[in-house]
């Protein structure tokens, strides 16, 4: 059993906007690129050019279709990575102490040296956010780019997770949820940011912003306010134009 810290100094995490995510997978590949080159073992790919190619990814985008009675169906894109939970069951289940939650910022990490690849943490995570790397035999997960966000070799504006820096549709935000005035806290409050599966009592740090209502435009009958005909019975160009010019 591994203990969680009683309290973390900060609560770093992501706000993911389901209203603007177009499902382009930019975050998925940027994450793969940064994290295969950086923290710990590379993110390997089995049969990369064969049948059933299977690689390790720390972030994946799923798409769900929602049917609503009497309305048009909708499609949502749902990027999913570790939510850096306050009560992270993946940490407490770890038999070696390899999984831990950082006191200073709340990031949940795996110390690969101590990881025996038993997979208990992946089993304990209700979100399916951990993947065992087939080549290295160690558990891989989102590090919130801990090697970017404090990295003095990067310009200050780039000290954000790779997925946030790359997202073309501005659907990902990074910040400190322990500060109520941070951008992530504010945007989450204003847009009703929600916890994923709160019934699991994991207290995820990452928040999701719900999609705004869609297909709300009301059908308009012939006498729409902005479509009042210029002439009651249009009789060709001259009648139309005379009346139109009268109104100018």
């Amino acid at each position, binding site marked *: 059993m*591994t*203990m969680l810290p009683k309290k973390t100094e900060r609560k770093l995490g992501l706000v993911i906007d389901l209203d*603007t995510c*177009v*499902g*382009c*997978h*930019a975050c998925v590949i*940027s994450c*793969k690129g*940064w994290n*295969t*080159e950086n923290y710990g073992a*590379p993110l390997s*790919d089995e*049969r990369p*050019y*064969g*049948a059933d*190619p299977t*690689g390790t*990814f720390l972030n994946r985008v799923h798409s769900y*279709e929602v*049917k609503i009675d009497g309305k*048009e*169906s909708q*499609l949502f894109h749902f990027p999913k990575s570790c939510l850096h939970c306050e009560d992270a069951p993946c940490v407490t289940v770890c038999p070696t*102490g*390899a999984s*831990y939650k950082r006191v200073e910022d709340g990031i949940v990490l795996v*110390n690969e040296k101590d990881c025996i690849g038993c997979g208990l943490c992946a089993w304990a995570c209700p979100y399916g956010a951990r993947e065992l790397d087939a*080549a290295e035999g160690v558990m891989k997960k989102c590090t919130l780019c*801990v*090697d970017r*966000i*404090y*990295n003095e*070799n990067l310009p200050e504006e780039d000290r954000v997770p790779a997925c946030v*820096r*790359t*997202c*073309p*549709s*501005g*659907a990902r935000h990074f910040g400190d949820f322990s500060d109520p005035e941070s951008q992530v806290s504010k945007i989450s409050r204003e847009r009703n940011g929600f916890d994923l599966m709160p019934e699991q009592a994991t207290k995820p740090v990452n928040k999701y912003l719900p999609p*705004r209502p*869609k*297909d*709300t*435009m*009301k*059908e*308009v009958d012939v006498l729409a*306010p*902005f*479509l009042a*005909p210029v002439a009651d019975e249009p009789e*060709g160009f001259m009648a*139309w134009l005379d009346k*139109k010019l009268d109104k100018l």
Partner: protein
Amino acid sequence: MTNQTCLNTSPKVSDEIRKTTCYMCACRCGIDVHLKEGKVAYIEGNRDHPVNKGVLCAKGSAGIMQVNAPSRLRAPLKRVGPRGSGKFEEISWEEALEIAEGLLRPIRDQNPEKLAFFTGRDQSQSFTSLWAQDFGTPNYAAHGGFCSVNMATAGIYTIGGSFWEFGQPDWENTKIFIIFGVAEDHDSNPIKIGLSRLKERGSKIIAVNPIRTGYNAIADEWIAITPGTDGQFILALIHEILKAGKIDLDYLSRYTNAPVLLNAETGLLLRDKDGKELVVDKESGDLHPFDRKGIYPDLAGEHLESGMLHRTVFHSLVDQYLSPEFSADVVSESTGISAGKIRAIASELAKVAFEETIELPHSWTDFRGEEHTKIIGRPVSFHAMRGISAHSNGFQTCRALHVLQILLGSVEVPGGFRLKPPYPKPSTIHPKPHFKVSPGSPLDGPHLGFVHGPDDLALKSDGTPARIDKAFTWENPMSAHGLMHMVISNAYHGDPYKIDTLFFYMANMSWNSSMNTRGVLKMLTDVDRNGKYVIPNIIYSDAYSSEMVAYADLILPDTTYLERYDCISLLDRPISEADAIADAIRWPVIKPDRDVRGFQSVLCELGGRLELPNFINEDGTQRYTDYADYIVNHVRKPGIGPLAGFRGTGTSAGRGDVNPRQMDQYIENGGFFVEKIPFGANYYKPWNMGYQEWAVKMGLYDSPKPYLFQLYLEPLRKFQRAAEGYGDRQPPEHLRKRIKSTMAPIPIWYPPFEGEHVDPAEYPLHALTQRPMAMYHSWGGQNAWLRQIHGTNPLYVSSTQMKKHDLVQGDWVKLSSAHGSIVVPIAEMSALNEDTVWTWNAIGKRKGTWALDVDSPETTKGFLLNHLISELLPQKGDGYRWMNSDPITGQAAWFDLRVKIEKTELQKMDDTSFEIIESPVGKGPDNLSWKVGK
């Protein structure tokens, strides 16, 4: 226990960052390539770059897997087995160039038209076209004919620019944005950035698309339109706003040809002796050329001459569109959109355009000398691409959309749609087609251009087509991008003539870039009575082991995009912004580890060997050592070269002498050049003298070129007149009716042609493809990371059709068109027009290609709709085989396809006719753990 490990949170990121331009799609974002020990360690977006402003899509970040792809060709190849077998031997560059020269020199000396040189997803068309022009063949084009030429030409003829990458919505000011027929396309990242800006500001986004994915999925409103009816929907919007008088009369009077007088007898525009269109001045009632200082053109002007009353374009347009046939009620059933919804959208457009007007306090002077103190914006904007253009009615539909924008006064204004330099540019200052062949000499001018009537057609003196693709002929008079999709078929049939050598670059013509793939393979491999190939020689350049490689006789292996020089030129397909002019370069941020050369550098050498005038010095030696040498030193006309930045002493922009340090300066500047349009000159560009004078200074025009937006497109009327029997140049009899009915000078809608040739009762469904955002055509399939996202492409079937055909998830269906059938896996989708099926574009691969295992899902489950689409429409008993293309531009009508589905017990594809190709590069490794740093 707790284990707070001590971490190095500041690891070294890279040894060096090299900034260049992405080529994972046509978007051309700036990228920062991080290198460790000379190898690519990480790729991210360049924050300073005008296109992507730091962001980067999945394809861009996956570039690292393109550069290490096992499918990369390694050395020049000479075919040693039969075509299609994939049997090659590696040869030296010297031998390869000797073979190429041996094939090409006699052609040039005797009959240059025997060479057909077509390039695919080429971003160097101003260079490759110069080479082809110097060679002297009339048979050159890039891939626009099967891509989106309807969009490009309709835009350029109508507003002097188009959607695509030539303009953009005013993302910062628009309040309602309607996007038609776009999955992923040009521009990819700018659209995503723009949509997020609209979301931040709460602007309304309306998506018109039979399929609700991607951009359409996040839109506020989804219009699940019936494919091929976008034109009807747009014209209904026009009818409704016109009936209500919600149009911008002042804008129409000043900036469009609405007030120009039409000859009541001929339908041609009235012009003065200098050829300038005539209008009636509202104040004086006198007739004047449109650009006369001080006049205000009268939309209701009339001119009586010789007993004939000539009225305005506007008069005809209003008469046409007020007709009840265009009303929301009439088109509701065929478009699948309720009349109330059409009116709701028309009402919203009217409200935003005229009640939520923007006024910017810019002083500017128009081309008639009138001074203005403000700029009025109509904050409604549109974007559209392939979904509306890849139909046989695509040209008229694209034009209809531009006419709607013009009537709302929303082009080149704040909040509307804005063009990017070098656009706007009137169609009349583009070149016309050139096709005069003289053995041993260059062609008489640029191949491609804009025709303005029958006199400009590319016909030989006997009336037969001058070009192998029959571009600029009566079958498709305004085919400004050529018809690459007809080249192989025409060459095979010797119609209009036989050729000797096909020379392709970056075009997968034996697979996803051809209609009727099986038929094309037969044409490429068929032999004559003497056992010789019907298409005698094929030279191909590609960086990768694509399907097309196996069908060529000689392969010139290209580099990857990180190993080469390129220029993203204003002479070609620019990357400018509405507020700024920009261009860019690529440079070899890594060196190739194979015996490959940039194709353009190879053309420099071939041009030297063949003694093409632009490619040799006065003493006959090769002029450009490589493409970089050409980019810096080529002079298109005095002061103008491929790159606009850092000219002269390194500080001139636009015009300036050759600067030997130009490439270095681009590299120092992050790989691009950008310069803002002066404040106040950046709106109303076609009529704003501030812009016009700036554009002359920058070398975009030689003198100011103000022009009118073309609601009425006179060249179309000229073709109609010919079809009516007027003039010396006459169309063939069988085309008269079609020319008269389709080439209407004010946009119309007609049903897609496939519906006339096949029985809609037998083939009740529409079939479409979409580009995935994380994949660009076939290139993505070889990418170890991207293929894990899109390794298969099920046929998406609507819930209604699933029920009707008793289908469940995991079933396979037989998918048939009038042309053929294939067996494919399906998936249910509910957010889909119920009479439409669709799949992702170009995921399917042929066994043995792209260094993939033969049992990879791309080959066992991935499929192409191309097998169901023919370059010719089914016979309809009139003795002719009609092209499956737009009758005006020749654009391949991919999206006219009609199909049926039948449940089948077969659970696999029938691929017996596609044998395994022997891979010239072997296959990729079984495991990958990519980390270049220690």
